[in-house]
Protein backbone atom coordinates (compact mmCIF):
# COMPACT_ATOMS: atom_id res chain seq x y z
CA UNK A 1 0.00 0.00 0.00
CA UNK A 2 1.26 3.43 -0.99
CA UNK A 3 2.69 5.57 1.78
CA UNK A 4 4.14 9.06 1.77
CA UNK A 5 6.49 10.90 4.08
CA UNK A 6 5.68 14.61 4.45
CA UNK A 7 8.38 16.92 5.70
CA UNK A 8 8.81 20.69 5.95
CA UNK A 9 10.72 23.41 7.78
CA UNK A 10 14.16 21.85 7.44
CA UNK A 11 15.56 25.35 7.49
CA UNK A 12 18.90 24.30 6.03
CA UNK A 13 19.51 21.73 8.78
CA UNK A 14 21.23 18.84 7.03
CA UNK A 15 21.55 16.95 10.31
CA UNK A 16 17.79 16.82 10.83
CA UNK A 17 17.32 15.80 7.22
CA UNK A 18 19.77 12.94 7.66
CA UNK A 19 18.00 11.85 10.84
CA UNK A 20 14.70 11.85 8.96
CA UNK A 21 16.19 9.83 6.11
CA UNK A 22 17.52 7.29 8.67
CA UNK A 23 14.14 7.13 10.35
CA UNK A 24 12.39 6.61 7.01
CA UNK A 25 14.57 3.56 6.37
CA UNK A 26 13.03 1.92 9.43
CA UNK A 27 9.50 2.42 8.07
CA UNK A 28 7.97 -0.09 5.76
CA UNK A 29 6.42 0.64 2.42
CA UNK A 30 7.36 4.28 2.03
CA UNK A 31 7.21 5.26 -1.63
CA UNK A 32 7.67 8.96 -1.71
CA UNK A 33 9.11 11.82 0.26
CA UNK A 34 7.54 15.24 -0.14
CA UNK A 35 9.35 18.26 1.23
CA UNK A 36 6.72 20.97 1.53
CA UNK A 37 8.85 24.08 1.52
CA UNK A 38 11.09 25.95 3.92
CA UNK A 39 14.02 23.84 2.85
CA UNK A 40 16.00 26.92 3.72
CA UNK A 41 15.82 29.15 6.76
CA UNK A 42 17.65 31.87 8.63
CA UNK A 43 19.49 29.76 11.20
CA UNK A 44 21.97 27.89 9.03
CA UNK A 45 23.98 28.17 5.90
CA UNK A 46 21.66 26.34 3.51
CA UNK A 47 24.08 25.17 0.83
CA UNK A 48 24.85 21.69 2.14
CA UNK A 49 21.19 20.74 2.51
CA UNK A 50 20.26 22.22 -0.86
CA UNK A 51 23.04 20.20 -2.48
CA UNK A 52 21.84 17.03 -0.78
CA UNK A 53 18.23 17.62 -1.88
CA UNK A 54 19.31 18.09 -5.49
CA UNK A 55 21.77 15.21 -5.40
CA UNK A 56 20.40 12.56 -3.06
CA UNK A 57 22.84 10.09 -1.56
CA UNK A 58 22.49 6.41 -2.20
CA UNK A 59 19.77 5.04 0.00
CA UNK A 60 18.00 8.39 0.41
CA UNK A 61 14.32 8.33 -0.39
CA UNK A 62 14.47 10.91 -3.22
CA UNK A 63 12.84 14.16 -2.11
CA UNK A 64 10.15 15.90 -4.14
CA UNK A 65 10.28 19.54 -3.12
CA UNK A 66 8.08 22.62 -3.41
CA UNK A 67 8.96 26.12 -2.31
CA UNK A 68 7.85 27.56 1.02
CA UNK A 69 7.72 30.94 2.69
CA UNK A 70 11.49 31.30 3.07
CA UNK A 71 12.19 30.33 -0.54
CA UNK A 72 9.52 32.81 -1.61
CA UNK A 73 11.31 35.59 0.30
CA UNK A 74 14.64 34.67 -1.24
CA UNK A 75 13.25 34.31 -4.75
CA UNK A 76 11.47 37.65 -4.48
CA UNK A 77 14.57 39.44 -3.21
CA UNK A 78 16.67 37.89 -5.98
CA UNK A 79 14.30 39.23 -8.62
CA UNK A 80 12.43 36.03 -9.50
CA UNK A 81 9.00 37.42 -8.57
CA UNK A 82 8.55 40.44 -10.83
CA UNK A 83 8.49 43.67 -8.87
CA UNK A 84 8.19 42.02 -5.50
CA UNK A 85 10.97 41.84 -2.92
CA UNK A 86 11.24 40.11 0.45
CA UNK A 87 8.81 42.60 1.97
CA UNK A 88 7.25 40.23 4.50
CA UNK A 89 10.66 39.27 5.87
CA UNK A 90 11.89 42.86 5.88
CA UNK A 91 8.83 44.14 7.76
CA UNK A 92 8.93 41.39 10.39
CA UNK A 93 12.66 40.93 10.89
CA UNK A 94 14.40 43.93 9.37
CA UNK A 95 16.87 44.39 6.59
CA UNK A 96 19.63 42.45 8.36
CA UNK A 97 17.50 39.31 8.17
CA UNK A 98 17.13 39.80 4.43
CA UNK A 99 20.87 40.24 4.01
CA UNK A 100 21.55 37.16 6.14
CA UNK A 101 19.16 35.10 4.04
CA UNK A 102 20.84 36.22 0.81
CA UNK A 103 24.22 35.26 2.24
CA UNK A 104 23.03 31.85 3.39
CA UNK A 105 22.25 30.47 -0.08
CA UNK A 106 24.81 30.22 -2.85
CA UNK A 107 23.42 31.83 -6.03
CA UNK A 108 24.21 28.60 -7.86
CA UNK A 109 21.09 27.12 -6.22
CA UNK A 110 18.75 29.86 -7.42
CA UNK A 111 17.79 28.31 -10.74
CA UNK A 112 16.80 25.10 -8.99
CA UNK A 113 14.87 26.95 -6.28
CA UNK A 114 13.10 29.02 -8.94
CA UNK A 115 12.03 25.83 -10.69
CA UNK A 116 10.16 24.54 -7.63
CA UNK A 117 6.38 24.48 -7.80
CA UNK A 118 3.81 26.02 -5.47
CA UNK A 119 2.38 22.61 -4.62
CA UNK A 120 1.57 19.09 -5.72
CA UNK A 121 -1.80 17.55 -6.39
CA UNK A 122 -1.56 13.81 -5.75
CA UNK A 123 -4.74 11.75 -6.05
CA UNK A 124 -7.32 13.85 -4.19
CA UNK A 125 -4.71 15.53 -1.99
CA UNK A 126 -3.13 18.97 -2.23
CA UNK A 127 0.37 19.12 -0.80
CA UNK A 128 1.18 22.74 -0.04
CA UNK A 129 3.32 24.88 2.18
CA UNK A 130 0.65 27.35 3.26
CA UNK A 131 -2.63 27.03 1.42
CA UNK A 132 -4.23 27.39 -1.97
CA UNK A 133 -4.59 31.11 -1.20
CA UNK A 134 -1.01 31.92 -0.27
CA UNK A 135 2.31 30.31 0.55
CA UNK A 136 2.25 32.29 3.83
CA UNK A 137 -1.26 31.23 4.83
CA UNK A 138 -1.12 29.67 8.32
CA UNK A 139 -3.79 27.02 8.63
CA UNK A 140 -4.22 25.52 12.08
CA UNK A 141 -6.90 23.87 14.21
CA UNK A 142 -8.06 27.27 15.46
CA UNK A 143 -8.52 28.66 11.94
CA UNK A 144 -12.09 29.42 10.95
CA UNK A 145 -13.65 26.28 9.45
CA UNK A 146 -15.07 28.52 6.75
CA UNK A 147 -11.56 29.50 5.69
CA UNK A 148 -10.35 25.89 5.83
CA UNK A 149 -13.27 24.79 3.68
CA UNK A 150 -12.58 27.62 1.25
CA UNK A 151 -8.94 26.57 0.89
CA UNK A 152 -10.05 23.00 0.15
CA UNK A 153 -12.70 24.18 -2.29
CA UNK A 154 -10.31 26.35 -4.27
CA UNK A 155 -8.39 23.28 -5.39
CA UNK A 156 -11.32 20.91 -5.22
CA UNK A 157 -9.37 18.39 -3.15
CA UNK A 158 -10.44 16.19 -0.24
CA UNK A 159 -7.21 16.50 1.73
CA UNK A 160 -5.08 19.56 2.10
CA UNK A 161 -1.65 19.06 3.66
CA UNK A 162 -0.15 22.22 5.06
CA UNK A 163 3.10 23.03 6.82
CA UNK A 164 3.24 26.77 7.40
CA UNK A 165 1.78 26.71 10.93
CA UNK A 166 4.48 24.13 11.91
CA UNK A 167 1.79 22.24 13.87
CA UNK A 168 0.86 18.59 13.56
CA UNK A 169 -2.87 18.11 13.48
CA UNK A 170 -5.72 16.63 11.57
CA UNK A 171 -8.95 18.56 11.23
CA UNK A 172 -11.89 16.77 9.66
CA UNK A 173 -14.90 18.67 8.39
CA UNK A 174 -17.56 16.16 9.27
CA UNK A 175 -20.96 17.79 9.20
CA UNK A 176 -23.07 20.83 8.57
CA UNK A 177 -24.79 22.54 5.68
CA UNK A 178 -25.86 25.91 4.35
CA UNK A 179 -28.92 27.26 2.56
CA UNK A 180 -28.79 29.65 -0.36
CA UNK A 181 -31.68 31.71 -1.58
CA UNK A 182 -31.00 33.13 -5.01
CA UNK A 183 -33.09 35.77 -6.73
CA UNK A 184 -32.43 36.92 -10.28
CA UNK A 185 -34.47 38.21 -13.19
CA UNK A 186 -35.70 34.69 -13.94
CA UNK A 187 -37.17 34.18 -10.48
CA UNK A 188 -36.12 32.75 -7.16
CA UNK A 189 -34.81 29.41 -6.04
CA UNK A 190 -33.29 27.71 -3.02
CA UNK A 191 -30.24 25.53 -2.80
CA UNK A 192 -28.83 23.50 0.01
CA UNK A 193 -25.24 22.50 0.19
CA UNK A 194 -23.72 20.08 2.66
CA UNK A 195 -20.28 20.33 4.15
CA UNK A 196 -18.16 17.87 2.19
CA UNK A 197 -16.17 15.33 4.17
CA UNK A 198 -12.77 16.87 3.76
CA UNK A 199 -9.68 17.33 5.91
CA UNK A 200 -6.84 19.71 6.53
CA UNK A 201 -3.69 18.09 7.86
CA UNK A 202 -0.80 19.92 9.47
CA UNK A 203 2.34 17.89 8.82
CA UNK A 204 4.68 19.57 11.33
CA UNK A 205 8.09 21.12 10.85
CA UNK A 206 11.72 20.11 11.17
CA UNK A 207 12.06 16.92 13.16
CA UNK A 208 8.28 16.68 13.44
CA UNK A 209 6.95 15.15 10.24
CA UNK A 210 4.10 12.95 9.04
CA UNK A 211 3.46 9.68 7.26
CA UNK A 212 0.31 9.29 5.22
CA UNK A 213 -1.26 6.33 3.49
CA UNK A 214 -3.68 7.67 0.87
CA UNK A 215 -5.32 4.27 0.45
CA UNK A 216 -6.45 4.00 4.05
CA UNK A 217 -6.41 7.75 4.84
CA UNK A 218 -4.22 6.92 7.80
CA UNK A 219 -1.98 9.68 9.18
CA UNK A 220 0.89 9.12 11.54
CA UNK A 221 2.62 12.00 13.31
CA UNK A 222 6.30 11.35 13.85
CA UNK A 223 9.05 13.04 15.80
CA UNK A 224 12.60 12.03 14.95
CA UNK A 225 13.84 9.48 17.48
CA UNK A 226 10.48 9.14 19.25
CA UNK A 227 8.17 6.18 18.85
CA UNK A 228 5.20 7.55 16.92
CA UNK A 229 1.68 7.89 18.28
CA UNK A 230 -0.48 6.09 15.78
CA UNK A 231 -3.61 7.62 14.36
CA UNK A 232 -6.11 5.09 13.21
CA UNK A 233 -8.95 7.49 12.69
CA UNK A 234 -10.11 8.62 9.31
CA UNK A 235 -12.94 8.18 6.94
CA UNK A 236 -11.48 5.13 5.23
Amino acid at each position, binding site marked *: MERWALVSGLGGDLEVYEQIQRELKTKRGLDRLFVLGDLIGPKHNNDALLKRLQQPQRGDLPPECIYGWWEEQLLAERGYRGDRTAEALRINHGNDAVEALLASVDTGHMAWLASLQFGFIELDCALLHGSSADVGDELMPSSSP*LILLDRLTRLDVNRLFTARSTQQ*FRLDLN*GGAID*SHIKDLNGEHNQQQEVPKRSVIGIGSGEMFSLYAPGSDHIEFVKVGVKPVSRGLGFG
Partner: protein
Amino acid sequence: MAHAVISCLHANLAAVEAVLADIDQQGINTITCLGDLVGYGPQPNEVVELMRQRAIPTCQGCWDEDIIDGLNACECSYPSQLAERRGHLAHQWTDAEMTAENKRFLASLPTSLRRDKLLFVHGSPNSQHEYLLPDMNAFAALERVETAGAETLFCGHTHQPYVRELRGGSIRVRVQHNDSSSSEEQDMTLPMRRIVNAGSVGEPRHGNTQATYVIHDEATNDLTIREVSYDVAKTCQAIIDAGLPEVFAWRLSHGFEYAERADDASHVCER
Protein backbone atom coordinates in the same frame (compact mmCIF):
# COMPACT_ATOMS: atom_id res chain seq x y z
CA MET B 1 -33.30 55.17 2.94
CA ALA B 2 -32.83 53.56 -0.45
CA HIS B 3 -29.60 53.61 -2.37
CA ALA B 4 -28.72 52.43 -5.85
CA VAL B 5 -25.75 50.35 -6.94
CA ILE B 6 -24.55 50.34 -10.52
CA SER B 7 -21.70 48.46 -12.18
CA CYS B 8 -20.02 47.75 -15.50
CA LEU B 9 -20.92 50.92 -17.41
CA HIS B 10 -18.46 50.02 -20.14
CA ALA B 11 -18.40 53.34 -21.96
CA ASN B 12 -22.03 53.09 -22.99
CA LEU B 13 -23.27 56.64 -22.49
CA ALA B 14 -26.87 56.08 -23.57
CA ALA B 15 -27.26 53.26 -21.05
CA VAL B 16 -25.63 55.25 -18.24
CA GLU B 17 -27.87 58.26 -18.86
CA ALA B 18 -30.98 56.09 -18.91
CA VAL B 19 -30.07 54.36 -15.64
CA LEU B 20 -29.19 57.61 -13.87
CA ALA B 21 -32.52 59.07 -15.03
CA ASP B 22 -34.34 56.01 -13.68
CA ILE B 23 -32.59 56.41 -10.32
CA ASP B 24 -33.29 60.16 -10.19
CA GLN B 25 -36.93 59.58 -11.02
CA GLN B 26 -37.30 57.48 -7.89
CA GLY B 27 -35.82 60.20 -5.75
CA ILE B 28 -32.76 58.15 -4.82
CA ASN B 29 -29.77 60.33 -4.02
CA THR B 30 -27.15 57.82 -2.96
CA ILE B 31 -25.50 55.92 -5.79
CA THR B 32 -22.45 53.69 -5.61
CA CYS B 33 -20.63 52.46 -8.69
CA LEU B 34 -18.67 49.20 -8.77
CA GLY B 35 -16.35 50.12 -11.62
CA ASP B 36 -15.69 49.11 -15.22
CA LEU B 37 -16.50 52.60 -16.42
CA VAL B 38 -14.70 51.84 -19.67
CA GLY B 39 -13.96 48.98 -22.06
CA TYR B 40 -15.99 47.52 -24.97
CA GLY B 41 -18.05 50.68 -25.44
CA PRO B 42 -17.53 53.77 -27.60
CA GLN B 43 -17.71 56.65 -25.07
CA PRO B 44 -15.09 56.12 -22.35
CA ASN B 45 -14.30 59.80 -21.79
CA GLU B 46 -17.95 60.84 -21.76
CA VAL B 47 -18.90 58.18 -19.22
CA VAL B 48 -15.95 58.92 -16.93
CA GLU B 49 -16.71 62.65 -17.09
CA LEU B 50 -20.37 62.07 -16.28
CA MET B 51 -19.45 60.01 -13.22
CA ARG B 52 -16.98 62.65 -12.09
CA GLN B 53 -19.47 65.43 -12.63
CA ARG B 54 -22.12 63.59 -10.58
CA ALA B 55 -19.46 62.76 -7.95
CA ILE B 56 -20.64 59.17 -7.66
CA PRO B 57 -18.44 57.13 -5.29
CA THR B 58 -16.83 54.48 -7.48
CA CYS B 59 -14.50 51.56 -6.97
CA GLN B 60 -12.05 50.43 -9.55
CA GLY B 61 -13.10 47.72 -11.99
CA CYS B 62 -10.99 45.20 -13.86
CA TRP B 63 -11.05 47.33 -17.00
CA ASP B 64 -10.23 50.50 -15.13
CA GLU B 65 -7.26 48.74 -13.56
CA ASP B 66 -6.02 47.34 -16.84
CA ILE B 67 -6.23 50.67 -18.64
CA ILE B 68 -3.87 52.13 -16.06
CA ASP B 69 -1.63 49.16 -15.39
CA GLY B 70 -1.54 47.79 -18.89
CA LEU B 71 -2.56 44.27 -19.72
CA ASN B 72 -0.37 42.52 -17.21
CA ALA B 73 -3.43 40.70 -16.01
CA CYS B 74 -3.34 36.99 -15.39
CA GLU B 75 -5.49 34.96 -17.76
CA CYS B 76 -8.45 35.10 -15.40
CA SER B 77 -9.22 38.63 -16.63
CA TYR B 78 -11.21 37.13 -19.46
CA PRO B 79 -13.71 34.37 -19.24
CA SER B 80 -12.59 32.78 -22.50
CA GLN B 81 -9.77 32.99 -25.03
CA LEU B 82 -12.07 34.40 -27.66
CA ALA B 83 -13.12 37.10 -25.25
CA GLU B 84 -9.49 37.78 -24.53
CA ARG B 85 -8.59 38.48 -28.15
CA ARG B 86 -11.49 40.88 -28.56
CA GLY B 87 -10.76 42.38 -25.19
CA HIS B 88 -7.27 43.26 -26.33
CA LEU B 89 -8.61 45.20 -29.30
CA ALA B 90 -11.01 47.11 -27.10
CA HIS B 91 -8.21 47.74 -24.64
CA GLN B 92 -5.96 49.29 -27.29
CA TRP B 93 -8.77 51.44 -28.65
CA THR B 94 -9.80 52.67 -25.18
CA ASP B 95 -6.21 53.32 -24.19
CA ALA B 96 -5.65 55.51 -27.26
CA GLU B 97 -8.97 57.31 -26.88
CA MET B 98 -8.89 58.28 -23.21
CA THR B 99 -7.52 61.58 -21.97
CA ALA B 100 -4.65 61.56 -19.50
CA GLU B 101 -6.85 63.25 -16.93
CA ASN B 102 -9.56 60.62 -17.18
CA LYS B 103 -6.94 57.88 -16.86
CA ARG B 104 -5.63 59.58 -13.75
CA PHE B 105 -9.15 59.52 -12.37
CA LEU B 106 -9.40 55.76 -12.98
CA ALA B 107 -6.02 55.31 -11.29
CA SER B 108 -7.27 57.18 -8.23
CA LEU B 109 -10.24 54.86 -7.64
CA PRO B 110 -10.17 52.63 -4.54
CA THR B 111 -10.57 48.87 -4.91
CA SER B 112 -13.36 48.81 -2.36
CA LEU B 113 -15.78 51.11 -0.58
CA ARG B 114 -17.37 50.45 2.78
CA ARG B 115 -20.43 51.89 4.48
CA ASP B 116 -21.09 50.28 7.85
CA LYS B 117 -21.76 46.62 7.12
CA LEU B 118 -22.04 47.14 3.37
CA LEU B 119 -18.99 46.44 1.26
CA PHE B 120 -18.71 47.46 -2.38
CA VAL B 121 -16.20 45.81 -4.71
CA HIS B 122 -15.94 45.12 -8.44
CA GLY B 123 -15.17 41.39 -8.63
CA SER B 124 -14.63 40.05 -5.14
CA PRO B 125 -12.88 41.30 -2.00
CA ASN B 126 -9.84 39.32 -3.22
CA SER B 127 -9.52 40.74 -6.68
CA GLN B 128 -11.18 42.92 -9.30
CA HIS B 129 -10.84 39.90 -11.58
CA GLU B 130 -12.52 37.20 -9.53
CA TYR B 131 -16.01 36.20 -10.63
CA LEU B 132 -18.61 35.60 -7.93
CA LEU B 133 -21.15 33.66 -9.93
CA PRO B 134 -24.59 32.94 -8.46
CA ASP B 135 -23.94 29.20 -8.28
CA MET B 136 -20.50 29.48 -6.73
CA ASN B 137 -19.95 27.12 -3.80
CA ALA B 138 -22.04 28.62 -1.00
CA PHE B 139 -19.38 28.19 1.68
CA ALA B 140 -16.73 29.80 -0.51
CA ALA B 141 -19.15 32.63 -1.28
CA LEU B 142 -19.82 33.14 2.43
CA GLU B 143 -16.09 33.09 3.13
CA ARG B 144 -15.60 36.06 0.78
CA VAL B 145 -18.18 38.15 2.63
CA GLU B 146 -17.18 37.02 6.12
CA THR B 147 -13.41 37.42 5.67
CA ALA B 148 -14.05 40.94 4.38
CA GLY B 149 -15.98 41.76 7.55
CA ALA B 150 -19.20 42.64 5.73
CA GLU B 151 -22.84 41.66 6.05
CA THR B 152 -23.83 42.51 2.51
CA LEU B 153 -21.33 42.40 -0.31
CA PHE B 154 -22.14 44.31 -3.49
CA CYS B 155 -20.23 43.16 -6.55
CA GLY B 156 -20.42 43.30 -10.35
CA HIS B 157 -18.04 41.97 -13.02
CA THR B 158 -20.18 38.99 -14.10
CA HIS B 159 -22.73 41.24 -15.85
CA GLN B 160 -25.50 39.04 -14.47
CA PRO B 161 -27.48 40.56 -11.62
CA TYR B 162 -28.57 38.45 -8.67
CA VAL B 163 -29.25 38.58 -4.96
CA ARG B 164 -27.99 35.64 -2.95
CA GLU B 165 -28.78 35.10 0.69
CA LEU B 166 -26.59 32.59 2.54
CA ARG B 167 -28.29 31.43 5.71
CA GLY B 168 -28.75 28.68 8.27
CA GLY B 169 -25.17 27.54 7.82
CA SER B 170 -23.10 25.45 10.17
CA ILE B 171 -19.88 23.48 10.01
CA ARG B 172 -18.87 20.68 12.38
CA VAL B 173 -15.22 19.80 12.76
CA ARG B 174 -13.25 17.13 14.56
CA VAL B 175 -9.69 17.94 15.56
CA GLN B 176 -6.91 15.54 16.46
CA HIS B 177 -3.60 16.82 17.79
CA ASN B 178 -0.33 14.94 17.71
CA ASP B 179 -0.05 14.74 21.48
CA SER B 180 -3.28 12.99 22.38
CA SER B 181 -5.14 10.02 21.11
CA SER B 182 -8.53 11.65 21.64
CA SER B 183 -10.19 14.09 19.31
CA GLU B 184 -12.46 17.02 20.01
CA GLU B 185 -15.55 18.10 18.10
CA GLN B 186 -16.67 21.67 17.52
CA ASP B 187 -19.71 23.17 15.87
CA MET B 188 -19.62 26.53 14.21
CA THR B 189 -22.81 28.40 13.42
CA LEU B 190 -22.37 30.58 10.37
CA PRO B 191 -23.89 34.04 10.16
CA MET B 192 -26.43 35.08 7.53
CA ARG B 193 -24.78 37.08 4.76
CA ARG B 194 -25.74 38.39 1.35
CA ILE B 195 -24.05 38.83 -1.99
CA VAL B 196 -25.67 41.27 -4.38
CA ASN B 197 -24.52 41.45 -7.96
CA ALA B 198 -25.54 44.71 -9.60
CA GLY B 199 -25.40 43.31 -13.14
CA SER B 200 -24.31 45.69 -15.86
CA VAL B 201 -25.48 49.09 -17.03
CA GLY B 202 -23.54 49.22 -20.28
CA GLU B 203 -22.96 45.63 -21.32
CA PRO B 204 -25.77 43.38 -20.06
CA ARG B 205 -25.27 39.64 -20.47
CA HIS B 206 -28.29 38.28 -18.68
CA GLY B 207 -30.09 37.36 -21.87
CA ASN B 208 -31.81 40.68 -22.33
CA THR B 209 -30.69 44.02 -23.77
CA GLN B 210 -31.91 46.16 -20.89
CA ALA B 211 -29.45 47.82 -18.56
CA THR B 212 -29.56 46.44 -15.01
CA TYR B 213 -28.76 47.79 -11.57
CA VAL B 214 -29.99 47.23 -8.01
CA ILE B 215 -31.78 49.24 -5.37
CA HIS B 216 -31.28 48.45 -1.69
CA ASP B 217 -33.83 49.77 0.80
CA GLU B 218 -31.92 49.97 4.06
CA ALA B 219 -35.08 50.38 6.13
CA THR B 220 -36.66 47.11 4.96
CA ASN B 221 -33.43 45.49 3.72
CA ASP B 222 -35.24 44.74 0.45
CA LEU B 223 -33.22 44.39 -2.71
CA THR B 224 -34.67 45.03 -6.14
CA ILE B 225 -33.08 44.30 -9.48
CA ARG B 226 -34.07 46.99 -11.96
CA GLU B 227 -34.12 46.70 -15.73
CA VAL B 228 -33.99 49.89 -17.79
CA SER B 229 -34.51 50.30 -21.52
CA TYR B 230 -32.22 52.59 -23.43
CA ASP B 231 -31.37 53.38 -27.02
CA VAL B 232 -29.35 50.25 -27.82
CA ALA B 233 -29.19 51.06 -31.54
CA LYS B 234 -27.53 54.39 -30.82
CA THR B 235 -24.69 52.79 -28.87
CA CYS B 236 -24.33 49.99 -31.45
CA GLN B 237 -23.94 52.58 -34.19
CA ALA B 238 -21.34 54.44 -32.15
CA ILE B 239 -19.40 51.19 -31.67
CA ILE B 240 -19.29 50.60 -35.40
CA ASP B 241 -18.44 54.26 -36.14
CA ALA B 242 -15.57 54.05 -33.67
CA GLY B 243 -14.16 51.01 -35.48
CA LEU B 244 -14.50 48.74 -32.45
CA PRO B 245 -15.13 45.02 -33.09
CA GLU B 246 -18.68 44.66 -34.41
CA VAL B 247 -19.26 41.74 -32.12
CA PHE B 248 -19.60 44.20 -29.24
CA ALA B 249 -22.55 45.76 -31.00
CA TRP B 250 -23.97 42.30 -31.65
CA ARG B 251 -23.62 41.45 -27.99
CA LEU B 252 -25.38 44.63 -26.89
CA SER B 253 -28.27 43.96 -29.21
CA HIS B 254 -28.65 40.39 -27.88
CA GLY B 255 -27.78 40.80 -24.23
CA PHE B 256 -25.61 37.72 -23.99
CA GLU B 257 -22.69 36.05 -25.61
CA TYR B 258 -22.41 32.38 -26.13
CA ALA B 259 -18.70 32.11 -25.39
CA GLU B 260 -18.74 34.59 -22.57
CA ARG B 261 -18.90 32.20 -19.64
CA ALA B 262 -16.11 31.91 -17.16
CA ASP B 263 -13.98 28.87 -17.99
CA ASP B 264 -12.95 28.52 -14.40
CA ALA B 265 -14.95 30.63 -12.04
CA SER B 266 -13.10 29.35 -9.01
CA HIS B 267 -9.76 30.44 -10.42
CA VAL B 268 -7.97 32.60 -7.90
CA CYS B 269 -6.13 35.55 -9.35
CA GLU B 270 -2.60 35.52 -7.96
CA ARG B 271 -1.66 38.89 -9.31
